[in-house]
């Protein structure tokens, strides 16, 4: 343990608590946003990040000649934009989100360094914190470029992110404010 959160200055514990509360709130809104725009099932993720949505899987490769299809739609269907992330948007998302995920993982990792847990657990926790965003974006890119089956990797990344945060937040809060051996 590089430092001990249990016996740290009140100001440090206050800072860590507020950081965890703020990150927790942003994670809740993040989950809400995922629910709105992508969904939590591999199928929904594949539709969002797949080559052109699951419904168009048969058209993944450009046709030999331009094909025109026409189907009736309602006003409501035109209003409902099916959120689909194409390559350009995924480049932008990766560029914007990866640095922020790294900063969040680093903050949680610094908190993990102050927890009274075995060295292997600390190492595993830090690995989990950084693996989550990698899995998240690797899943998106593999879904886009290789196969919609990789959507499960993104779903796993999302759950790993939630798990990493929950472990750090729960253990840190418990050790800082309740357990004082």
């Amino acid at each position, binding site marked *: 343990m590089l430092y001990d959160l249990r016996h740290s200055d009140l100001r440090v514990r206050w800072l860590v608590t507020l950081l965890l509360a703020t990150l927790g709130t942003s994670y809740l809104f993040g989950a809400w946003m995922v629910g709105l725009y992508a969904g939590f099932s591999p199928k929904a993720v594949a539709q969002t990040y797949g*080559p*052109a949505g699951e419904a*168009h899987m048969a*058209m993944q490769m*450009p*046709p*030999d*000649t*331009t*094909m*025109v*299809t*026409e*189907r*009736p*739609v*309602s*006003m*409501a*269907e*035109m*209003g409902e*934009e099916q959120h*689909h992330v*194409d*390559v*350009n*948007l995924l480049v*932008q998302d990766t560029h*914007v989100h990866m*640095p*922020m995920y790294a*900063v969040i993982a680093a903050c949680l990792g610094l908190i993990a360094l102050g927890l009274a847990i075995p060295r292997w657990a600390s190492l595993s926790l830090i690995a989990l914190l950084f693996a989550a965003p990698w899995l998240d974006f690797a899943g998106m890119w593999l879904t886009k470029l290789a196969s919609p089956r990789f959507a499960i990797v993104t779903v796993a990344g999302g759950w790993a992110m939630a798990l990493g945060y929950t472990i750090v937040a729960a253990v840190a809060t418990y050790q800082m404010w309740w357990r004082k051996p």
Partner: protein
Amino acid sequence: MKTLILGAVTAALLHITPTVILVKREDAVAKLLPGADQFAARELHLSSTDSRKLHDAVGWEPPDGVVTFYVGKHGDQTVGALVFMRVDCQHGPIELAIGYDPRGTIRGVEVTKATVEMKPWIVEALRAGLTNQYRGLAVAQAPNGAEKVKPQIGAMPGYMAELIDKGVMHAGAAYRLFYR
């Protein structure tokens, strides 16, 4: 120096702001396909050759190879067609709705979405009458709304107007080359 670096890093991390709806899609459809009560989505799945043709014409092709026109009808009569077009820039995406009358001239253009950062710039360009410049434009004509409103607006609204010109041009090329 530290403040500068911190500011630059913060700006780099936060420079794409959330999306805002400027005009609801339903409202854009009602305005650009007036009186239509039946709609059909005409999806053009472009071949590689046609994608290249489009790219050669306007320097753009749909990222997923599909352009969707929404055709509006009232009874047996076609009211027109509409396409939603996204234009990306370093500040985020802009979504436009471009409506055509049955003769193929532009009936109107609505900016449906932008980002929080871009909204005031776009609103300034719209207040200067940007979208009026597209009305009645034939698909073969290059849109130059930005040039006309630039003297009345600031630099960033002018840049937004150029992006909107670009979106109208992309939609026009898709309509001219492939809409039947």
